[in-house]
C-alpha cells in the first residue's frame, strides 16, 4: 500500500485553518502533498452534499478544519458544524463507509505546527484505509443492460 497516494479534499476555514496552512507553508513545516485545499468562510458552511460530492468524484478522504470552540469568527458556526459532522459521520458509518474517510480538526491560524502535524496524521490514516471503494460514481461505459 506504500504506492498508494490518497487524494484528500480539504475544506479549511478562512479565519483559522487556512491561515494555519499558510503559516505552515511560510515556516517550511513539511507535510505530504495529498491535499486539495478549498477555502471556506466557516466550517459551518460545509454541507453533506459537498462531502459526498468530493467522495463520488474520486476523493479518498475529506478533511474539514475550523476554529476552536469559542473562536468562531461568526461566534458559533463551528458549534453547529460540530453537531452536524457528528451526525453525518455516524450516518455514513452506519451505511457502510469507513468513518475515518471523514476527518475533522480545530486548528487556529497560529497553529502552523499543529496544521502540519494533523495533515500528516490525516494522510496516514486515509492512506492506511486504501483507495475509497464506496459512494464513488462510476461512469456508465456501455449501453446499460436493459432493465
Amino acid at each position, binding site marked *: 500500500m506504500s504506492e498508494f497516494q490518497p487524494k484528500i479534499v480539504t475544506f479549511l476555514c478562512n479565519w483559522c485553518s487556512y491561515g494555519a496552512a499558510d503559516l505552515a507553508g511560510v515556516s517550511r513545516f513539511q507535510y505530504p502533498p495529498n491535499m486539495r485545499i478549498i477555502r471556506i468562510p466557516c466550517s459551518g458552511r460545509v454541507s453533506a452534499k459537498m462531502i459526498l460530492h468530493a467522495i463520488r468524484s474520486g476523493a479518498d478522504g475529506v478533511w474539514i478544519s475550523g476554529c476552536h470552540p469559542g473562536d468562531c469568527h461568526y461566534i458559533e458556526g463551528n458549534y453547529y458544524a460540530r453537531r452536524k459532522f457528528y451526525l453525518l459521520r455516524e450516518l455514513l458509518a452506519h451505511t457502510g463507509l469507513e468513518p475515518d474517510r471523514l476527518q475533522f480538526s480545530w486548528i487556529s491560524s497560529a497553529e502552523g505546527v499543529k496544521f502540519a502535524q494533523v495533515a500528516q496524521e490525516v494522510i496516514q490514516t486515509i492512506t492506511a484505509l486504501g483507495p475509497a471503494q464506496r459512494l464513488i460514481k462510476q*461512469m456508465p*461505459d456501455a449501453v*446499460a443492460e*436493459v*432493465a
Partner: protein
Amino acid sequence: MNMIRVTKQAVATALAKASKSYAIAGPVKAGAGHEFRCLGQGQVPDLEYTHTRLSPKSLLFPQAEPMFHFKLPETTGEPGDTPPAFLEAESFKEAPLAVVGLRPWDARALDLLKLNFDSPDYTDPFFIKRYNAMVRVGLADIHPDPENFSLAAGSGPFDEASVDILLADAGDAFIGKVITGKGRDFAGAAGFEPGSPDDAKAFAALKAAAEKEADILPACDRINDADTLDLYHADFWEAAAFSCINCGACTFACPTCWCFDIQDEVNQGKGVRLRLWDSCMTDLYSAHASGHNPREKGFQRFRNRFMHKLKYFPDKYGAGIMCVGCGRCITQCPGGIDIREVMAAMNAAAATVQQEVSP
C-alpha cells in the same frame, strides 16, 4: 387458428431451447414484487405473477440510456496541439429479445410508445432497433386486478393486437395462439407443441371469463369532442389535484409515459450523454432557463398529465387514449389519485359544456 400448448414443467426447457437464438426477458421476483428483467442462462420467468410494479417499457426505453461517450484527447500541452475531442456513439447488440409473460395491455403500451419514438419527423435509433428486435410472448391475465381497466381502455386481458404469441394459464399448461410470423418463429425455436381444438375452446372460455371480470371504464366518450380549452379551464382540476404530491411515481410506473431528459455526466476529461426518464409532475420538468415556469403550480402539472393522456394524445394521433388501463398509477399513488375518477370528471365537465352550447 394456430393453437399451441406447453406444459408448465416444460416451460424451462422450451425457453432454454429458444435461448439459443433469442435473449429472453420476463417477470421475476424483485424485492417485494415482480419486475421485468433480462434473464440469465437457466433463469426462468415467474409466469404465476400478477403484475409488475414497473412497466416493461424499460426494455425498449431504459430509465438511463447512454447515447454517446466523449473524452478530451491526449494533448502535449504545446500551443497548437489541440486534437478534436473524441466522440463514440453507442453500439447495439442486435440479438432478438423475446419477452415472455408480457401482459397484453403492456404490449399495447409499447406500440403507443412507438408513436412518439418513430414518427414521420424522427425515428429514434435506440428505441426502434430494440422495438424491431423484440418478440412479444404475451401472457393473458385470467384474473385481472380490480384496478385494471384495460378492456375499456382499448386493450384487455386477452388483447391480441400487440403480441406475437398469446398464452393463457390453463392450470397444468399454458395454451395459446401464435399470432404473427415472429411468433411462429419463436414457437418453433422453443418447440411449443401444437394445441388441440379443445385447447381453442378452453382458451375462448378463459377469455370470456376474464373479460367478464374486467372492470369497465368510466365513460370518456365526451372528452374527444370537447373543446380543449373548455376542459383545460374546467373548475374541477384544483380539487382533483389536491391530494397529489407531484412525485413521479405514476409517470415512472406508467407503461405509456415517455418523457425524457438529457444529461451530460462528465468526470475528469471524459463523459457520457444520457437520456433519462423525466416526469412532468416535477417543477423542473417545465421550468424555463429564464426562471419562468408555465406549470408552476402542482395542479397545473397534474392537469397536464391527464390532459396529455386523455385529450392531447387522442387528438394528435387518433389512436385512442394514452392509457392502457394497467392500473399501476392507481395502486401506487401515495395520494390516492385514481385516473378513472379523473376521466369521469373530465367527461362530466365535457358534458356540462356541451349542454350549455347545444340549444
